[in-house]
């Protein structure tokens, strides 16, 4: 099954990420985001990071999840390539283990600079098995 599709946009870029369950959609959204920033296939799982989040809605949880990854990536110059996510829809909570390494200009591709995760076209569709989000670049 395809992990995600890129959504084209005049000034920015979006992702439609698929999965049988929401947790999988969230994982694939993260993969999509880091494929825009770099190329997850070239990112080794050298270090591990734990993330726990709680939001008011599951849509906000998606934004918070991707924003958190973006922040960590920017602060520490990390790239993440592998994501193990558990989303509790009822509690609007997320627990995840993410794997990655320091950015290495010799091995990692330089993609686009994502400034932020926006609320535009934000969608969490459990029934049809996808989530959708747009990034400001």
């Amino acid at each position, binding site marked *: 099954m395809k992990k995600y599709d890129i959504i084209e946009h005049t000034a920015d870029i979006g992702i439609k990420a698929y999965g049988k369950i929401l947790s999988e959609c969230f994982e694939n959204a993260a993969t999509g985001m880091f494929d825009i920033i770099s190329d997850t296939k070239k990112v080794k799982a050298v270090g591990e990071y734990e993330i726990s989040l709680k939001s008011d809605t599951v849509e906000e949880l998606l934004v918070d999840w991707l924003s958190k990854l973006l*922040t960590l990536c920017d602060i520490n*110059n990390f790239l993440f390539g592998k994501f193990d996510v558990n989303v509790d829809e009822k509690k609007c909570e997320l627990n995840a283990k993410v794997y990655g390494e320091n950015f290495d200009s010799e091995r990692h591709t330089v993609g686009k600079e994502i400034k932020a995760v*926006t609320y535009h076209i934000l969608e969490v569709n459990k029934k049809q098995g996808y989530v959708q989000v747009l990034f400001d670049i």
Partner: protein
Amino acid sequence: MNWQGTLKKIDEYRYEIPSDYKGEKGNLKMRTPGLIYASEKLIESIRKDNAPEQVANVATLPGIVGKSMAMPDIHWGYGFPIGGVAAMDAETGVISPGGVGYDINCGVRLVKTNLTVKDVTPKIKEIVDSMFNNVPSGVGSRGKIKLNMNQLDDVLENGAGWAVNNGYGWKEDMEFLEENGCMKNAEPSKVSTFAKQRGMPQLGSLGGGNHFLEIDRVDEIYDEKTAKVFGIEHKDQIMVLIHTGSRGCGHQICTDSLKEMERAVKKYNINLPDGQLACAPVNSPEAENYFKSMACGANYAWANRQMIVHWVRESFEKVFNRKAEELDMHIVYDVCHNIAKLEEHEFEGKKRKLYVHRKGATRAFPKEHPDIPSKYKSVGQPVLIPGDMGTASYVLVGTETGMKETFGSTCHGAGRIMSRHEALRRWRNEDIKREMDKKNIYVHSASMKVLVEEAPDAYKNVDDVVDTTHGAGISLKVAKLKPLGVMKG
């Protein structure tokens, strides 16, 4: 799909969205008309991306004073369109981070020199390459210095002043920056640790995407008197243009604020046609906190551009073996094009205090305004309009007409018309390089792809945008600059 709403042509440069327009969903309650500055040539492309709907949406915000406006470089954004200008009453209005943008104080700085095309053409590759080596750039670019949290707080509080006090640039630079390079209401305690942590390693870097350093020559002078006052003496004079913003720090401040605003909308029962117009009443703690942290983001950007100017001067010193002072590398001006300001304006005969939101729009104050440098009071405030990589940039001046109609605001640049993917499909790196070579523009870019993504044809024609604001009288053309060399991240 094209926007189907009503656009009433007022004159050659003004189109109105009537306040009884009910919006695409049929239930919009506009408090005031929308006003789009555009020529007939531009209006067709403006309908293409639904941005006019956003102009109508902004017109529903409580406390809006005057019309919901958009400049001719209008295109779709988050909540507010890019090119959007809206003023909110300082007592009854709202403040909206979407009316500022993620890249707080993305802006432009123009530096003059006493060099000419003859001096620079034989050395253009050397200068651009020197700047490339001296100024960190590119996606996720990190600065050359390591700041600790206290120093970062100092940057957020003092903006360009921090940079000058730490040896970047000259004290006299500050007079020629919007707000003298520092918004005094900044409060670093209102900025999250995350935003500070993102800011710390990135101070003194250009970033990627559409940010750039450009070496320009004066191609045409439209208003000799004003140009001379600005320090633009003659054709073929060399100038340097810097375009960058607040990096990850500003982006995080906006992200953090939007989360707060989402809650505020529910708390204060604000009815919005688009969730991304998330806002809070001006006197609420949420709005006050945003305004104080936005000022911090703005100050970060001014400090950033100040450091970059210093390194640009160093690059020129290295190549020409003369001091920057000798090369007369003074700052002409520095403008923000993503910001909200508390300003006093006259509206319907009364003096009003207003929060003017300019998102992808530039302040353009007229002559005698107290907030512009004394040197420029006889003519008005310089407005710097970066074009795309291959065409031209402009220097404009603010006018009384603009002050009355748009609260002293005008356009900010060209505006994209094509997605980056579309650009990558249409052109290859070699195509763009060839086009630049034909125009004798030397480009040094960190990434092959960004050259194509930022191709001139992916943008509106900046000449059309600037001709419109000139024709409408909200800002007037002073000079046209054409690039000789471009450095991109």
